[in-house]
C-alpha cells in the first residue's frame, strides 16, 4: 500500500473541506489500495460523521444516512416491512462481517470486480485510461451484456443498488463549496462510453450524505440473485422486481437488474410491456425480448443472455402467481 495522509472529520462540512478521498467502511477502498489499484494521497475518515440514522420523511418515505451499515439497513423494521426487496438484496450480498462494515454510500460507489481492473500488470481503461481493455477478447465471464462500449465491458457489482433502482431512490450530496443536491439514482451511475474511469455524476470531493426512498408502493417484492455459489458470491444476474396486481392483471411493474451492465440497469420499456396485461409465459418472454433486444455477449459471458431471460421469466411467474 502506498503511504497516505490520514485525517478524521467530525462534521460533513469539515469532511468536504479537508480535500481527500473519503473512507467509510473501507471494505472496497482498502482492498483496492492494498493492490495499488487505488493510490490516494490523503484519506478523510468520515466514520464519525452523524449520518447513521434512518429517518421517516414527510412524504412517507425513508432517509437513510450514508453511514448506515448494510446490516443495520437490512434489519431495520421499516425496511423489512415496506421495502422487503431492499432487505433481501442486502442480505444476498457479501458476508455477515462485510455487511457490518459496508455503508450505504460506500456500497453505491464500490468499484467493479473485473479481474483486469484488479491486476495492475494488465491493460484496463478504467484503471489506466488509454491502456486498453483486457476483458474484451479476454476472460469476461462476469462482464456486461448491456450498455457496454468498446472501451469497457465491466459490471457494477452492487446488490443493494439494484433494489434501490427498482425503488426509485435518490442520492443526497454535499459539495465542497457547501451546496447540496439530490440526484435520482437512475442518473447517478454512468455507462462506460469513452471514459469508463468516470463512474458516477459526482464531482470531485462531493460527499454522499443520504439515500432517499419514496413512500412504499407495496406490491409483491422479490430479489433473485443467480450466482456461482449459494452464498457469498457476486451476482451473475440479479433481478429486483416490484409487481402490483389488480383484478388478475399486472397493474404495474418496476424491474431493475444486476450483473448485466456498468450500472444497476432499469429499462422502462420492459415494464411497459407488462403494464395492464394478464400474466402469461408469452408475456414474460416479450418482456425479456424488450430487455435483451440490444444485448451483446463477449464470448465467456454469452450465457448471461439466456440466463437473464430465464431469471426474469421465473421472477415474473413468482410475482404474479395466484393471480
Amino acid at each position: 500500500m502506498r503511504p497516505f495522509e490520514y485525517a478524521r472529520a467530525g462534521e460533513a462540512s469539515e469532511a468536504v473541506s479537508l480535500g481527500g478521498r473519503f473512507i467509510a467502511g473501507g471494505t472496497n477502498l482498502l482492498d483496492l489500495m492494498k493492490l495499488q489499484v487505488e493510490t490516494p494521497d490523503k484519506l478523510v475518515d468520515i466514520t464519525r460523521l452523524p449520518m447513521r440514522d434512518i429517518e421517516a420523511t414527510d412524504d412517507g418515505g425513508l432517509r437513510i444516512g450514508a453511514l448506515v451499515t448494510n446490516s443495520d439497513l437490512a434489519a431495520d423494521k421499516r425496511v423489512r416491512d415496506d421495502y422487503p426487496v431492499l432487505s433481501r438484496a442486502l442480505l444476498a450480498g457479501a458476508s455477515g462481517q462485510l455487511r457490518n462494515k459496508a455503508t450505504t454510500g460506500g456500497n453505491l460507489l464500490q468499484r467493479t470486480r473485473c479481474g483486469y481492473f484488479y491486476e495492475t500488470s494488465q491493460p484496463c481503461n478504467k484503471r489506466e485510461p488509454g491502456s486498453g481493455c483486457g476483458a474484451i477478447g479476454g476472460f469476461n465471464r462476469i462482464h456486461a451484456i448491456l450498455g457496454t462500449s468498446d472501451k469497457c465491458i465491466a459490471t457494477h457489482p452492487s446488490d443493494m443498488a439494484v433494489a434501490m433502482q427498482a425503488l426509485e431512490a435518490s442520492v443526497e450530496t454535499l459539495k465542497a463549496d457547501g451546496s447540496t443536491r439530490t440526484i435520482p439514482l437512475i442518473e447517478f451511475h454512468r455507462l462506460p462510453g469513452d471514459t469508463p474511469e468516470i463512474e458516477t455524476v459526482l464531482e470531485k470531493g462531493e460527499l454522499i450524505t443520504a439515500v432517499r426512498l419514496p413512500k412504499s408502493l407495496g406490491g409483491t417484492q422479490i430479489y433473485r440473485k443467480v450466482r456461482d455459489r449459494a452464498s457469498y458470491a457476486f451476482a451473475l444476474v440479479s433481478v429486483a422486481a416490484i409487481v402490483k396486481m389488480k383484478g388478475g392483471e399486472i397493474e404495474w411493474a418496476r424491474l431493475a437488474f444486476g450483473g448485466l451492465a456498468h450500472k444497476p440497469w432499469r429499462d422502462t420499456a420492459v415494464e411497459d410491456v407488462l403494464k395492464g396485461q394478464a400474466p402469461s409465459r408469452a408475456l414474460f418472454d416479450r418482456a425479456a425480448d424488450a430487455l435483451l433486444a440490444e444485448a451483446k455477449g463477449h464470448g465467456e459471458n454469452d450465457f448471461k443472455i439466456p440466463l437473464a431471460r430465464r431469471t426474469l421469466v421465473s421472477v415474473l411467474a413468482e410475482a404474479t402467481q395466484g393471480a
Partner: protein
Amino acid sequence: MITLTINGEEHRLDVDPRTSLLDACRDHLGLTGSKKGCDHGQCGACTMLVNGRRINSCLTLAVMHEGDEITTVEGLGEPGNLHPMQAAFLEHDGFQCGYCTPGQVVSAVGMLGEVADGWPSNASKDLQNGAELSGEEIRERMSGNLCRCSAYPNIVDAIETAAKTTKEPA
C-alpha cells in the same frame, strides 16, 4: 500515537496509518490469535468484534478504531476458562489444521448476537419474524468464514451446541 481498547485493556501504540487493525494486533501488540488468511476480506480468519459486531479486521485501519471496544479471540476465553463457543469447537472437533478457527469462533459469537437481535438472513423464509437457528441458517450466516480443511459439518454442530448453551445459561 493512537489508543486502542482491546479485550478491555487500553494500548497506546505508534502506527503508520496504513496498518490494518489485524496487523496492529498481531505485529504491534502480540495478539496473534487472529489470523491473516487472504488479507482481502474473503476468508474471515481475521474476524474480530468491534463494539460487539463482527468485522474483517484486515479491511480496516487501526487509526480508525480509537474509542471502539475491540474483542479478539484472546478476549473471549483462555485455556482453563474457555468461552462456550471455544469449548463447543473442542467438543465437536470443529477444525483440522486450526488456522481458520479463531475467526470461526469469533464470527460465530458475533453471529449469535445478530440472531439474538432478531436480524434476518438470506436463508430466512420470513423477513419479519426472527429465524430459528437451523443448520441452513448457520451455514448462510457463517459463509464469510472459509475452512480449507472443510471441517464445516463439525463447525455447524459446534455452533448449534454453543447456541443452546448460551440460550440456557448455567
